[in-house]
């Protein structure tokens, strides 16, 4: 192995020979423009925004740095209630899942008596399905076959026996990956024929970002804030017919339970949406990553797939649909594993062939995420040793979330200037804030959207990081913020209290 300095000398010698030959060209260069500039780059990429990790978070990170360097502030830590990351807020992982994943990572542990037998069994089965018995081998692009089979079985069980075909299951790098993949397949056409995609306002900004990136037309349909963020078919119809003037609407996206709004759609509503999609010939994308996060009494998660099939063959044989799930939310909160899947229904076989090609470009989804997904769909059963602990942990997480959902709604609704719909599900609250006109004017002066101004001030004064409602979309003239309900209950109470104090103080300042 030659020494580093020898390489440098050789390179410099070679470089001199080569650069000498172009000395004239070199001499002429002083204002050589770059190849990749704002003008030459993909214009679509310039339209991509993602508020959840946007400017407010960058400011939060900046403040954290300053705190670390000893700066004095009215708070000692920044509470990042901007992102749906449960573990970041102290939620504990499910023991069983981590045990199996540790066994998969380092199979020598299979000899360790400290691990329960059911964990070992799961690990052995997963490793058996991996190339070279290692989670370090590529899997098939669609995902490990036996895991897809397990996912299909889980879906069947969840949906009261309605069959699910493993061939229609595609494992992915988080649900976001699958959502973007389907959109890539669906978006085409030029000008007036360009694909239009219907998305709820407010929405999770991955959708608007992906649509901007793909150059698709975003068609907004407004959820009804006065009625618990419910979805109205009349509103869907309005949005669709307006959109038909300037694009080719082909897709309808729905997030249930909702993000940021937390509403859990009624069964009737889901039927209405499916009927609408069939009538208007729209591809349905059902984002169901919060399916286990349902808190409000009287609310229940109904999967789009189940409802579709229960509506009979007229619908189940024709409506094209993709539903998405993930290991990042629910009770697992394993965002960092990037596990997820989609189930596609009634997809044209030729399109499926293109789909396989699309997913093959990135080779395969992370195998630890696939393994984790397998455990989520195949958790400890009542007759297994890990069952009791598993159920205890799962119940603890979900009931804590339910309690925090209730607490949040309750406290926010006592604050003048803040109104909060019930947090029926998911992990967020999206309260409406009334801003004094003077504050709105001040925001304008500073070149900020009013709720961004509000959130920036909250961040600077209280060290609480939220995402302004403008990042998700809202009706003109209304302002909101999205806050996660993930901090531990005691901390959440403090956060709610601080926001109340800030709201009062802010209103007074700009009265």
């Amino acid at each position, binding site marked *: 192995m030659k020494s580093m300095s020898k390489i440098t000398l050789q390179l410099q010698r070679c*470089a001199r020979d080569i*650069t000498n030959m172009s000395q004239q060209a070199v001499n002429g260069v002083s204002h050589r423009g770059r190849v990749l500039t704002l003008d030459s780059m*993909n214009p679509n990429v310039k339209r*991509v925004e993602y508020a959840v990790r946007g400017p407010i978070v960058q400011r939060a*990170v900046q403040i954290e740095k300053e705190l670390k360097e000893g700066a004095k502030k009215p708070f000692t830590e920044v509470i990042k209630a901007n992102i749906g990351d*449960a573990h970041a807020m102290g939620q504990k992982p499910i023991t069983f899942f981590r045990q199996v994943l540790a066994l998969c990572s380092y199979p020598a542990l299979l000899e*360790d008596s400290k691990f329960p037998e059911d964990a070992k069994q799961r690990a052995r089965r997963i490793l058996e399905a991996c190339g070279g018995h290692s*989670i370090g081998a590529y899997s098939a692009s669609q995902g490990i076959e036996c895991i897809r089979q397990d996912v299909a079985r889980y879906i069947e069980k969840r949906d009261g026996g309605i069959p699910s075909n493993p061939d229609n299951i595609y494992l992915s790098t988080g649900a976001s990956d699958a959502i973007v993949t389907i959109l890539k397949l669906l978006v085409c056409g030029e000008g007036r024929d360009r694909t239009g995609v219907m998305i709820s306002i407010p929405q999770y900004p991955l959708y608007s970002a992906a649509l901007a990136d793909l150059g698709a037309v975003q068609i907004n349909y407004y959820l009804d804030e006065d009625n618990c963020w419910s979805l109205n078919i009349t509103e869907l119809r309005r949005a669709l017919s307006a959109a038909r003037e300037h694009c080719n609407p082909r897709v309808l996206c729905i997030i249930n339970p909702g993000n940021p709004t937390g509403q859990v759609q009624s069964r009737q509503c889901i039927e209405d949406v499916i009927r609408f999609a069939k009538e208007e010939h729209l591809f349905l994308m059902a984002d169901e990553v919060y399916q286990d996060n349902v808190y409000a009494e009287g609310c229940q998660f109904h999967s789009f797939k189940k409802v579709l099939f229960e509506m009979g063959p007229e619908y189940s044989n024709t409506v094209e649909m993709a539903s998405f799930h993930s290991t990042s939310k629910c009770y697992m909160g394993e965002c960092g594993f990037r596990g997820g899947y989609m189930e596609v229904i009634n997809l044209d076989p030729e399109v499926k062939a293109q789909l396989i090609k699309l997913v093959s*470009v990135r*080779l395969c989804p992370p195998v630890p995420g696939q393994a984790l997904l397998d455990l989520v769909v195949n958790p400890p059963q009542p007759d297994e040793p890990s069952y009791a602990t598993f159920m205890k942990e799962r119940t603890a997480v979900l009931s804590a979330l339910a309690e925090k959902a209730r607490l949040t709604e309750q406290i926010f609704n006592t604050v003048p200037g803040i109104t909060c719909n019930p947090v029926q599900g998911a992990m967020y609250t999206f309260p409406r804030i009334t801003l004094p006109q003077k504050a709105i004017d001040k925001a304008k002066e500073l070149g900020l959207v009013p709720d961004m101004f509000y959130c920036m001030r909250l961040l600077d004064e209280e060290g609480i990081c939220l995402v302004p409602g403008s990042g998700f979309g809202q009706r003109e003239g209304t302002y909101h913020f999205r806050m996660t309900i993930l901090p531990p209950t005691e901390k959440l109470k403090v956060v709610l209290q601080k926001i109340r104090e800030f709201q009062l103080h802010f209103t007074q300042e700009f009265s």
Partner: protein
Amino acid sequence: MWNMKQLEYGALARRANQIKDELRQGVRRPYKEVIDVFQGDLHRAGMKPLTFVRQVLAACVYPPLINSSNLPLDVRQRAQEELGRCVGGSVGSYSAAPGIPEIIHSISEFIKRRDGGIPSHPENIYISPGSQWSISNILNVLVNREASPRTGVLIPVPCHNKTVLSITQLGAVAVPYYLSEEQGWALQVEELQRALESAKGVCNPVALYVINPGNPAGYVQSQKSVLEVIRFAWEKRLFLLVDELYQDRVYGENCEFVSYKRAVSEMGPPFSGTVELASFHSVSKGFSGECGLRAGYVELVNLDPAVMKYIHTLFSKDACSPVLGQIALDLMTDPPKPGDPSYLLYKQEIEQIRTVLLHSVKKVHEVVNSLPGFSCPPIEGGLFAFPRLHLTPKAIQKAKELGLQPDTFYCTRLLEEGGVFTGPGWEYGQKEGTYHIRFCIAVPQDIMEELLRRLSSFHMTFMKDFS
């Protein structure tokens, strides 16, 4: 050239899986198992993961192991360190979008050491779920879908097909430049020039994609070649996309890997300050071979700061890379050091892999070149052999009758009769009228011997059948 419609996508892979299933069910075939060397997948091919890496990952995943006396002290300390960098102390939380800051720092230090002290700036590094993910993202920024003529990207022939697929899916044009097989797969500037000229009136080339060390062809670019390519890219105003996944895989005695970043810097002004470059690396192809964890990174050099802002947002909407993969990257760029409890075993395992590879490289060259109708230049680097098949007109005719490319026909028969799963040269691109196969050489010694035995036996039969 890469006619996507004709690509019988995955047919060979499906058949390989079918055969594997049949063998599992006890169906009798002339072999007991399929030797799967289709992908550059060390673990699938039988190589073992590195113990240190897996111990640290296990302890990160299940932190009670940090108190286990069964794990070496440095493993436990390292796991604790890694968890300390994770938000909430869990590998289950999202990291910052570009990657865990300390790991990015580690990568920048690794790059600096590799490049003889040339600084690497953390804010220019993004971690992604595998290198193809960042290649796609950077291509996405480069390719203006609304432009007329369409954006073009120069691509080597042969080339692994993932990047080509990314290019065509973005609506850009892949412009092939042929590596010179006679010259050990050398990249000749005249050929780059020809390729550029061929693009006139067809598309607007904005980028030049280079793979060094190569895939599928096992070359390592000479320093002179690297410099020539950089100068060419600079003169012709091409953004350089450099796939350097195999930088740790260099075997040739007179070969040395020199990173494009280093070369650009050593060339001095104006090149050092203006050549726009994206170099890609990954945890998949190094000694740890952790393909399934999905972790790679891109280092961006000399990019417009305004464009960098948008690149940042693009990576943000993807959430973040899998945390276990990021940790594996950290362990790759900052491995055990002499004196650490795990060092000896770590070094031993690395040496074992290195020995196996050197042995493979020699053996493959020997055996393939001893067979009639089969030839292979010395494998200088990378993870594959890409030998040339000199097929008879009879064999080519038979393939045509079956509606298959000649080398696909060969690979299909090799799979069925020999139980060896390889990739046909057609899938990577090759000069018209030439045929190749690609197979991974990172295989344990006994499996390599069996592979070569089966390959030789099959090849002799095949050549005889079609003589």
